[in-house]
């Protein structure tokens, strides 16, 4: 099961909205077997390493970027999904990252 984490500053609003959009997108496109979770920057460093794809809405800190690099986690800009301006760019990157997981 592939795992995606979406993180914003507080974990209350923006990350949950993006999770909702990604879930809807997967449902519309018949993509199954992917879990999408929301979190905030406080919890992110402890859990990030267990995820395959990291969708950021708030700019990743150095600590976060370090974890992403060390664990080979795919990092995707989630702002287009959040604002709804050309979200397909982000969705494409997420799909690519998921495909890479399958082949590796």
């Amino acid at each position, binding site marked *: 099961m592939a795992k995606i984490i979406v993180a914003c500053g507080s974990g*209350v609003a923006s990350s*949950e*909205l993006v999770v909702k959009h990604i879930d809807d997108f997967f449902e519309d496109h018949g993509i199954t077997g992917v879990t999408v979770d929301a979190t905030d920057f406080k919890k992110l460093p402890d859990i990030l390493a267990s995820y395959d794809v990291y969708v950021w809405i708030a700019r990743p800190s150095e600590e976060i970027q370090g974890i992403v690099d060390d664990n080979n986690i795919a990092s995707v800009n989630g702002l287009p999904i959040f604002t709804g301006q050309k979200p397909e760019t982000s969705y494409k990157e997420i799909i690519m990252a998921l495909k890479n997981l399958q082949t590796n």
Partner: protein
Amino acid sequence: MDYKEMLQPELVFLNIDAKDRSDLYSKVAAKLMKLGYVKDSYEAALNKREDEFPTGVVSDFISIALPHANPENINKPFVAVVTTKEPLKMLQMGYNTEEEAKTFFFLGIQHSDDQLTLLQEFMALIQDKEFVADFESISDESEMYQYIAKRFAEAEVK
């Protein structure tokens, strides 16, 4: 709570005279405090949050910000519609690049799908050219409340 109840006539503050972001936040926090929506800790939490994670969003038609603080600083959910006399320097969410905004939607979000719908609705509205033109032409607070409430009601039908 239905997200439409978060918008109230008493929560529209237009043409506020603010010299910078912290001045604006202090003025809006004082109003929200007086109305009982937020706690003493709200203003500091709002500024801290904006410093750490900017909330500016730019569409093709308008630059806005969505200032918000963690749920423990608010008493009940709200959305406050605020405009300033002069544009203020803000930073864009995620990119941390500069923008100039005169429009602010202060979100008092606790935790529910309805409130997510509200956020989603604002994102859609700022990309609607007609909404932005109407929004910018309204200077009366009660007229603004009526207009946004009407747009929210229409969105639900969609």
